[in-house]
């Protein structure tokens, strides 16, 4: 069941669109914000409110990079793997991260603290290489900086 808070946040989107189905991406983002990821049960909960099947929602969710159908860590690291960051050496930042965290790109650390995801150009190419951790953008990355940044996300 949706919590009253989730439900209220989703319903606040209803007036912005002419039908409920159009709200489904916003709804999935809202539930993911509260629960970390979108389980089959979460999709059923959302579907009941919007009048959609879990399969319909799954079809939508699997198209989008930022909707997670599998559990992620407490913090998600989005490392830009696009061209300007590549020119500026993002391969080195990526191997530093995989070594330090002991996971490959796409995986979550054993303690559930971090998930490492490659992501498309973050629109900060003049400060390459760039990553985001949760909602924060971290520009001009060096390996030493990465170590210091990670400490801020317990």
């Amino acid at each position: 069941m949706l919590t009253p808070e989730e439900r209220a946040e989703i319903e606040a989107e209803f007036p912005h669109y002419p039908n409920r189905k159009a709200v489904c991406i916003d709804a999935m983002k809202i539930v993911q914000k509260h629960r970390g990821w979108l389980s089959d049960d979460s999709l059923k909960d959302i579907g009941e409110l919007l009048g959609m099947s879990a399969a319909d929602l799954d079809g939508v969710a699997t198209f989008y990079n930022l909707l997670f159908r599998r559990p992620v860590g407490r913090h998600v690291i989005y490392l830009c793997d696009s061209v300007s960051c590549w020119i500026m050496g993002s391969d080195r930042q990526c191997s530093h991260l995989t070594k330090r965290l002991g996971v490959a790109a796409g995986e979550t650390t054993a303690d559930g603290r971090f998930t490492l995801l490659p992501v498309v150009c973050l629109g900060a190419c003049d400060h390459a290489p760039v990553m985001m951790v949760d909602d924060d953008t971290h520009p001009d990355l060096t390996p030493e900086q990465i170590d210091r940044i990670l400490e801020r996300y317990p």
Partner: protein
Amino acid sequence: MPEDKPLTGNMRPDGQALDREAYERAGGYQGLRKALTGMTRAAVIEEVKASNLRGRGGAGFSTGLKWSFVPETVPHPRYVVANGDEMEPGTFKDRLLVERDPHQLVEGMILAGYATGADTGYVFLRGEYKLGAQRVAQAIAEAYGAGYLGKDILHSGYSFELYLHLSAGRYMCGEETGMLNALEGKRANPRAKPPFPPVSGLFGMPTTINNVETLCNVPHIIRNGAAWFRGLSRSKDGGTKLYGASGKVKRPGLWELPMGTTIREILEEHAGGMRDGLRLRGLLPGGASTDFLTGEHLDTPMDFSEVQKAGSRLGTGTMIILDDQTCPVGMVSNLEHFFAQESCGWCTPCWSGLGWVERILRAMEEGRGQPGDMEKLAFQTRFWGSGHTFCALAPGAAEPLQSALKYFRADFEQHINEKRCPWK
């Protein structure tokens, strides 16, 4: 206002956004007032047409002409959508506009709405742009508070609602009909055209889609006039342009300059030239989906027709610089990986061909290149041309590859012959 930099000249040096009052002090919402109190819809469209404003999303379509395609007599509701998806690798211009002067975009959208008779607008913004999202939401709230949005704006009888939609992330959301599907809560596959969005777009209703930078120019055009706007430019296309440079230049960055500023001026004066010890090998003038240019093209003015004459496209106007210590095959491999990953899978030449090309390029980088690979790559790009696919993703993917095969042929051959990447 610094007259030669309408888009960025008023931005605060401390990185904060202009709030409504600061925006108004700089002349903000005067264009809207002028349009709503003294101009017909047709007059607004005529002014924008006369300004020679061309779309800043990459294709360079005349904005005034696009607006005129929304028929006068169609039913309501009609929509306006701002394209702030900005997932084109190497592009970082709309981020600045939404973070630092969100009211400029809001005013541009209301004017676009008025000109096309729209009832509702959506700002479609990349989900990763968290700060931009906060600031646009704040600006929308302030604009409602001041009576610039909602019912009967400035007692003109015109009403317009504006909402923010944050994307869940996929390059295809930037393609205009993919974006409409995303807004309808669907997978962002593009739609077969015709019908085109001005006739049948969002929820089947007439819809106008413009890039964020395009819309941000509109308040200035209405306030100061088309002739003034044309005068900002050094070329036939009106206005200024946000130009950027990333890669190994001394000062990567973003600059608002007259439309038609040469590549050389942007690279040497604004970006400070190449880093010490490096030479320019090539550049993508306007993001990942534009053809490479080289050192021989430095005197090309960066406008739509001149860059095309040089064999590429202005695209988003943010250049990606390739230096002589970076492997061109590796760069193209990175680009084609992006396109392969983001292909929506509808057209066979795109999803199948991109996967194949990605594997060939990866193999070359790893020393497993084969004789005949160059021909296979060239063969694939021919199926990605316009007309073979439903959207412009595949034609865009062809551009850096086909031009790299032309300009960096020896590097590809060296990878194949020596069975290794000479840069590793």
